[in-house]
C-alpha cells in the first residue's frame, strides 16, 4: 500500500533523527513512562533480597553458579544500553546446557555502531524482549546463586543501573570475576600481565579451551563458564570454599 505524503514525511523525519521505527518508539515511550512514574521497590527485588546469598562456607562443588555476559551499545552504564544478555548455569561443576539462555533486548535507540562488535543489528531486534521482563526472570531464577562474569564490573554496573531504573532499587549482587582470577593466577606465576592477556579469548587459548565467536552474549557466557571450570580445577584444592574463591578474585 503506498504511503500517504505526510506519512512519508514522518518516516523521513524519524530516520533523520536516527530514531527506530514506531514499534521501538512505542517501547521507548513505555520505558520512559516507567522511569517517570518511579515505580516503588518492586516485588522482584524484595523477593531476591529475601533469599540469602550463597553461604561463603559452601564447598565449590556444591555451589550453583550462573555465568552471565551482556552486550551493550557502549561502556557507560548510565548512558548506554543493554543489547543482549546470555547466561549459562554450572551445577555440581557441570555446565548444564539445558539452562542456557540468550535474550535480545529491545533498546530505545538504534544499536548503530556497536553492532560491529556484537553482531546484533536493528533488524534482529524484532524478536527482542523487554529488559524488565528478562531481568525479572533472571533475578527470580537465580536468587541465592553465585554470579560470575569475565570483567564483571560491566555486568554488575549495567544490571545495577537497569534495576534502579526499572524496579527503583538494585539487588545485592556479588560477582566472581574470572578475569580477576586469571590475573591473580598469572601474578602468582610471576608473569608480567598485559591487558590483552586478560581478554577472554586469550585466557581460553592459554588454558587450551575451545574458543568461539566473540561478542555474542551466550557464546561469551559459555566461554567464561569453561574458564571458570578450568580455574576451579587448577586451584588443586578439593576443599575449596566459596569464600576462598571471592578472596582469590580480588584484584
Amino acid at each position: 500500500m503506498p504511503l500517504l505524503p505526510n506519512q512519508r514525511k514522518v518516516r523521513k523525519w524519524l530516520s533523520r533523527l536516527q530514531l527506530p521505527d514506531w514499534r521501538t518508539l512505542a517501547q521507548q515511550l513505555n520505558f520512559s513512562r516507567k522511569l517517570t512514574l518511579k515505580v516503588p521497590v518492586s516485588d522482584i527485588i524484595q523477593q531476591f533480597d529475601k533469599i540469602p546469598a550463597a553461604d561463603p562456607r559452601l564447598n565449590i562443588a556444591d555451589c550453583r553458579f550462573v555465568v552471565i555476559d551482556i552486550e551493550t551499545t557502549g561502556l557507560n552504564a548510565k548512558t548506554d544500553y543493554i543489547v543482549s544478555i546470555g547466561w549459562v548455569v554450572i551445577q555440581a561443576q557441570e555446565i548444564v546446557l539445558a539452562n542456557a539462555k540468550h535474550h535480545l533486548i529491545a533498546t530505545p535507540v538504534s544499536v548503530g555502531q556497536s553492532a560491529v562488535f556484537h553482531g546484533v543489528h536493528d533488524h534482529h531486534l524484532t524478536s527482542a524482549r523487554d529488559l524488565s521482563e528478562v531481568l525479572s526472570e533472571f533475578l527470580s531464577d537465580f536468587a541465592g546463586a553465585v554470579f560470575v562474569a569475565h570483567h564483571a564490573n560491566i555486568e554488575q554496573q549495567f544490571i545495577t543501573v537497569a534495576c534502579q531504573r526499572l524496579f527503583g532499587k538494585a539487588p545485592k549482587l556479588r560477582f566472581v570475576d574470572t578475569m580477576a582470577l586469571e590475573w591473580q593466577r598469572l601474578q602468582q606465576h610471576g608473569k608480567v600481565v598485559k591487558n590483552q592477556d586478560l581478554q577472554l579469548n586469550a585466557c581460553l587459548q592459554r588454558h587450551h579451551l575451545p574458543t568461539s565467536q566473540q561478542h555474542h552474549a551466550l557464546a561469551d557466557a559459555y566461554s567464561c563458564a569453561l574458564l571458570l571450570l578450568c580455574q576451579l580445577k587448577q586451584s588443586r584444592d578439593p576443599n575449596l570454599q566459596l569464600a576462598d574463591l571471592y578472596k582469590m578474585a580480588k584484584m
Partner: protein
Amino acid sequence: MSEISEVSKFLAHTTPFNQLPAAQISRLTRHFTVYYYQAQELVPAETNRLLIVRTGVFSLYSDQQQLLAKLQEGDFYGYQRLLTELGDHDQLRCEEDGLVYWLDQQSFHQLRHQFKNFDIFFQRLFSRRLHQYQEQQHNNRFTLKIDDIIHHRKVTIAPEQNVQTAAALMTEQRVSSLLVEEQDKLVGIVTDRDLRSRVLAKDLPASTQVCQIMTRQPHHIDRHAYLFEAVQLMSRHNIHHLPVMDNNVSCSMITATDIIRAQQDHPVYLIGQIHRQQTVDGLEQCSLQIKTLAIVMGKQQVPAAEASHILTTLTDALTQRLIQLAQIKLGNAPCVFSWLAFGSQARMDQSLNADQDNALLLEKEPVAEIADYFQALAEFVCQGLARCGVKLCPGNIMASNDELRLSLKGWSTRFARWIGTPTPAALLNASIYFDLRVIEGSRGLFNALQQDILARTVNNDLFLLHMAHTALERTAPLGFFKNFILEPDGHHKQGLDLKKRGISLLTDIVRVYALSAGITQINTRARLQQLAKLQLIETKQMQNLLDAFDVLSQLRFDKHVHELQQDHDVTNLLDPAHLSGLQRHQLKDCFNVINAAQQSLRYRFCREL
C-alpha cells in the same frame, strides 16, 4: 536461539552425530552438560551417561591396569554400560586436562531409536569390531552389479552341432558368443574369435562339431556379483566373455564390450594390449594408462584388495612381456629359469608407489655365457620396468644385482643360512625374501625352491622366534593424533606411515604364522583365510585382521589415487588432519587389532625355549 554454537559445531563434525539433521543437533545440545577433567582425575565408572571427549587425552585401562586405548577428541566412553546395562571393569583416567561432554541416558537411547546409523555406530564400537559401515552411497553407479547391465537372453547351442550352424546362429542373433549346453548344463562357450582362430585358421571343415573347438569349463560369474568382479576376472585371465549364472544355471553372457558400455572409462583391454607390444617404447606407452586405470578404480570404489590385485597383474604382464622381448633380442635362454618377485608383488598387494623386488632362479650355475646371458636379460627387464613406472629398488633387490641370480642350490644355501643361523639384523633385511612368487619361466623350478624353504621353516622354533622378534620390532601407534609418532619423510613432511606403522606390521605377523605352518599361499588375505581353515588362528581373529588389513589398504589406496589425481608424489605418509571422524575410529580399531595380534604372536612364538 539459546544454543551454544561451539558445541553444535563440534557435534556437526563428529561421527556419528554428523549423520543427524542439523535441526536435531541444535535441539540435542540442550541435553548436554560440560565438565572439565584435570590430569590424573578418574572418570566415575558407574555413570549411566555417554561421555564424548572434547579436548585433552584420556587413557582406558583394563582391570589388570593394562593400557587398552587412548581417547582423544571425538572419542566415546560409557556406551558399553548404556548398551548392556552392565558395568565393565575398565578404568578411564585423564592424562592431559580436558573438557568432556556428557549426554544423558534418555537422549542417548532416543537417538538410537530414531537414527539407525547412530545405533549401528555404537553397536559396532561396542563389539570392538571394525565398523566398516559406508557413509551413504550417493552414486550407485559405483556399485553396479552384473544383473544391472545384462540382458536376460541366453543364446545356446548343443555341443554336437556343427560350427556352421553356430556361425549362422550368432549372425542371426547378432551375438559374438554362444553358451554350449548339454541337458541344460553349461559345458563350454564358443566365441567368434574361436571360429576364426580354431576353425578357419586351422582349415577345419564347416562340419566340425562345436564341442571340438569350444572352451570347456569356462570361467563364469554369478548374476548377483559386482561388475568390478567380472572386470577383475576378465583382466586376470585375459578373457572377454563370461557366462552369467543364476543358481549354477547359465542365464546370460557378459562381454567386455558390455562392461565398457556400462563403464565408459574402464580400460579392460590393457593387459591384452601389453602382451601385444613389440618394443619397450610401446610398453612404456601402455604403462601410462595404469595411472588412469587406478583413478577409475578409485572412482568406482573397487576395493583396495582387488585394485592391488589388478595393479600387480599389470606389473606381472609388463614383466612377462619384457622377458619375452629380451629373449627376442638376446635369443633363447641357455637354460631353464624362473623370474621371481618378492614382497608386495609376490603377495599381489602392490601399491601405486611400489618399487621393484625381483630376482632370477636358474636351472644351472650362473657361469660363463649363462652368467652373461642372464645378466643382460635382467638388465633389460629391470631397466624396462623402470621406464614403465616400476621404480628401481633403492635396496638393489633386483635381478640385475649379481648376488640375486642364483641356481636352485645357490638360493637354497642362502635361505638355509638365514633360517639356520638367524640374526635379527640379517632377518630384518631378509624378511622380504620370504614372500616370493614366480612371474615367468619355470614353475617347477620355483616349486622346488618354495618346498625347500618351507621344509626348513616349519616348526623351526629358533627361526620362528627370531622372525617373530623382527615382526614385533615396530608397534602400531596408539596415540598418534598427539603428533608423537609422526615421522619425517626426508622432504620435511610429517605424517603417519601407513605402510611401516600399519600394513607391514600385519603382513609381518601373518608371514610368521604362514612360515610356521608351511602354507604355500603368499597373498596376506589368502594366508589368513588358509590359517583359519587349518584352525591355526581363531576365525574371529582372522576376521579382525582381514578387516584391519582392508581398512589400511583402502586408506592407502584412496590416498594414492587422490595424490595421482592431484599430480602429487605418491607417498605412504598420512596426515591425520585429513581423516574423517569415522576413518579415525577405524584406524584406531586397526591399531588395536594389530596390537592384540602382536601380543598373541609374542605368546605363541617368543616363549622361553
